[in-house]
């Protein structure tokens, strides 16, 4: 991994990050766009949660990980404290793997 590759990745990544803050004050967003963009973030994060829960590379991640996420998600819906949600999700996945579930 050459230093140049790292530098290009860093520069590009920073460009993605800076575009919003740099342009935001010049562009006056209509409320509709604001709402759409807030929805866009929610859609992205949920899609990221779904793909990282269910898939690994180009295939299925196995049952243990999504099972843990579902248990954690159910607790979150019931307004369980954040640490409980995360620890239960991890513990569920770990125990299932210990039992031989992929």
């Amino acid at each position, binding site marked *: *991994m050459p230093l140049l590759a*790292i530098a290009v990745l860093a520069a*590009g*990544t920073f460009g*993605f990050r800076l575009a919003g803050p740099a342009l935001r004050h010049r562009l006056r967003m209509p409320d509709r766009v604001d709402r759409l963009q807030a929805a866009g973030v929610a*859609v992205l994060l949920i899609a990221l949660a779904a793909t990282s829960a269910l898939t690994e590379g180009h295939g299925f*991640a196995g049952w243990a990980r999504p099972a843990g996420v579902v248990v954690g*998600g159910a607790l*979150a819906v019931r307004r369980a404290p954040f640490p409980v949600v995360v620890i239960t999700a991890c513990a569920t996945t770990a125990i299932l793997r210990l039992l031989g579930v992929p």
Partner: protein
Amino acid sequence: MFILVDMRTFWRTLDRGTLRAIAMVCVADAVVGASFGAVCVAGGLRPWVPTSMSLIVFAGGSQFAAVGVVLAGGSPVAAVAAGLLLNSRLLPYGFAVADLLGGRWWTRLAGAHLTTDESVAFAVGQPDPARRRAAFWTCGIALFACWNLAVGAGALAATAIGNTDAFGLDAAFPAVLLTLVLPSLADRGIRHAALLGAVLAVAVTPFLPAGLPPLLALAGLVLLARPAPAAPEVG
């Protein structure tokens, strides 16, 4: 000094639950960071590679993706492309948090660099602008410190960390995201768009390069294109 004063204000602005949640995320990400450092060094890369990458790229998923391509024998160009594809989701995040970064150019530069899934998710989960700002900066700064220290430690420890999957830590990231976005899903339109987007993203994952499927999920926003019948505002 300025940052220290600001940080103390942020501490007082956020409730204990949020601070505890941020700490949990930092711990979980630190474990991921340590494994990143270890994976790189175990794969034959010099320790400066993961550590410098973590400082200037500071986006875990793309770091794993880029190093994964290189360790699998791919070219540096393919590695950079994979990383950038994954990080293109930071573009809409930037617009989402633009108002939280302050007016000075250097706080905007610093804030931009601290824009991550986690800092954005914590920010949008807060009920008012002051708390959104506090959550964004607290999470961003804490995560930057934890992530870089952990990657360095992992690179040093290299072989000491075994398979983190055995501890179910891979379930932490999706569970965290789900929990953080939950309040936004109270809006029915957003909920439907997110559901459609998630199904779409998972369905195309086998066929598309890593990083692209979550972006494709944005197609779910078509459900919001129609003017909603005076839906109650959320947040």
